[in-house]
């Protein structure tokens, strides 16, 4: 209660500095929030495409149905494999007639079905790396009755590189802006401590406990971070509503998941707390000597 009172008194004592700090932290986090919004949507789009990654094995016509069933069971048991779909020759033809309307005449006049039966393997999340896809294709191709296994290796690798780059940029930008926010809070709390230097000195002289002196500043840092986080959330939401962005194949941007926004605001408050703890430890802790 006293800590909260003192923290609020700190805001009243240097209102301009506090508003500037919250604004600056908010701005840093807005940029992070907007990037998060884009990253979330890129991630979603990549995830959609990744889920469609298939390893397809085309079977020879003389593959016996017993062998095919046994192979299917073996493939389903592979740890990387999420599902195995068997497309018979008749289904393949039916699908070709349906999907390739411009060739419907050609397919309609066929006496012999030229299309092979096939296995379509989907991989589990976390196994959709170029290496695992390639390895699974190799396993499939090893069956003597599999004529050919395909998986679009080039674009799987590109997709994976794109995802890695997006993650790297998100981490670098996130870390950069978090660092800016931390530096701002460290400075704000240091200014607050300097503004109350006389009081702190007297508290230390008469025997106040370290925590008693430090708590209001820690709270001030956490509240500054929280306020900056909420400001950033509000501005990001406003930008999302006012400027509906469209890019690439994404029709319209999806808003961030609630967990992300809650975690973002909580992380801002935590950053504020940690930054204040650093400042307080440096400025106040000295008077108590080595720990």
């Amino acid at each position, binding site marked *: 209660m006293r800590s909260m009172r003192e923290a609020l008194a700190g805001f009243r004592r240097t209102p301009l500095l506090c508003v500037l700090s919250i604004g600056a932290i908010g701005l840093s986090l807005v940029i992070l929030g907007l990037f998060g919004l884009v990253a979330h949507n890129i991630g979603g789009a990549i995830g959609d495409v990744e889920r469609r990654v298939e390893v397809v094995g085309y079977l020879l016509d003389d593959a016996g149905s017993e062998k095919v069933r046994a192979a299917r069971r073996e493939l389903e048991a592979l740890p990387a494999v999420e599902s195995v779909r068997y497309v018979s020759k008749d289904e393949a033809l039916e699908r070709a007639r349906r999907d390739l309307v411009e060739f419907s005449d050609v397919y309609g006049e066929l006496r012999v079905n030229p299309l092979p039966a096939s296995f379509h393997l989907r991989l589990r999340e976390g196994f959709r790396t170029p290496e695992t896809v390639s390895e699974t294709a190799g396993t499939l191709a090893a069956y003597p009755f599999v004529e050919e296994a395909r998986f679009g290796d080039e674009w799987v690798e590109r997709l994976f590189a794109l995802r890695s780059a997006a993650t790297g940029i998100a981490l670098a930008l996130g870390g950069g802006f978090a660092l800016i926010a931390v530096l701002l809070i460290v400075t704000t709390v240091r200014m607050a401590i300097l503004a109350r230097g006389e009081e702190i000195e*007297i508290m230390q002289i008469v025997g106040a406990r370290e925590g008693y002196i430090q708590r209001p500043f820690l709270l001030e840092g956490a509240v500054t971070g929280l306020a900056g986080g909420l400001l950033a959330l509000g501005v990001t939401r406003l930008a999302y509503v006012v400027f509906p962005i469209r890019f690439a194949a994404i029709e319209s941007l999806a808003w961030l998941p609630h967990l992300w926004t809650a975690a973002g605001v909580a992380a801002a408050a935590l950053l504020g707390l940690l930054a204040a703890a650093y400042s307080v430890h440096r400025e106040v802790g000295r008077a108590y000597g080595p720990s």
Partner: protein
Amino acid sequence: MISLRGVSKAYPRSGDALRGVSFRLRKGEFAFLTGPSGAGKSTVLELIHFQTRPTEGEVQVSRYNSRRVRRRDIPALRRRVGFVFQDFKLLERLTAAENVAFALEVIGTPRREIAGRVQRLLSQVGLAARHRSRPSELSGGERQRVAVARALATEPRILLADEPTGNLDPDAAGGVFELFRMLNRLGTAVLMATHDADFVRRHPDIRRLELEDGRLARDSAA
């Protein structure tokens, strides 16, 4: 009660402040710590208040030893050792009563007890009538009395005073000194640093610890 054994203190920039200082101050004793400016008087007081630690030797205050003291024990030690400064260190925006109340509040005195204790403390230093005055409205002597009242808020057994009469005229200085003597008669040990040799000479009954260039040059009790 206070014991310094072979204490040396060196600062990275300014070099040696104290060299091999040893003395004891017993319970309820009064002593002057004298010497010219820069002799190391303030450093001795800071060491006893555990604001700094010796480079060599050890400081013992009650049960607290500078070699073994834990960081979290320092506030408790400081509540036993009151400190009065030459420049008073009062908060200008607070009244005399609020300055004393501030000290009581930060050591966790229950709120309902604070007003009564502030009144008693200000009465003890003869300032009950000026409790609503701010430091800027008080004379130097009165400000020092408020500072003493604040130092007494924690009911210390030891009172350290760093040039407490340095900014006061002779009358005010005499008044503050008499206050220290009265507190000492009530059982508080007092260690008063001063460079005013005339003032010290006027009180030959009081023990004198004389520092010169960081060494204890004379101890009148020895």
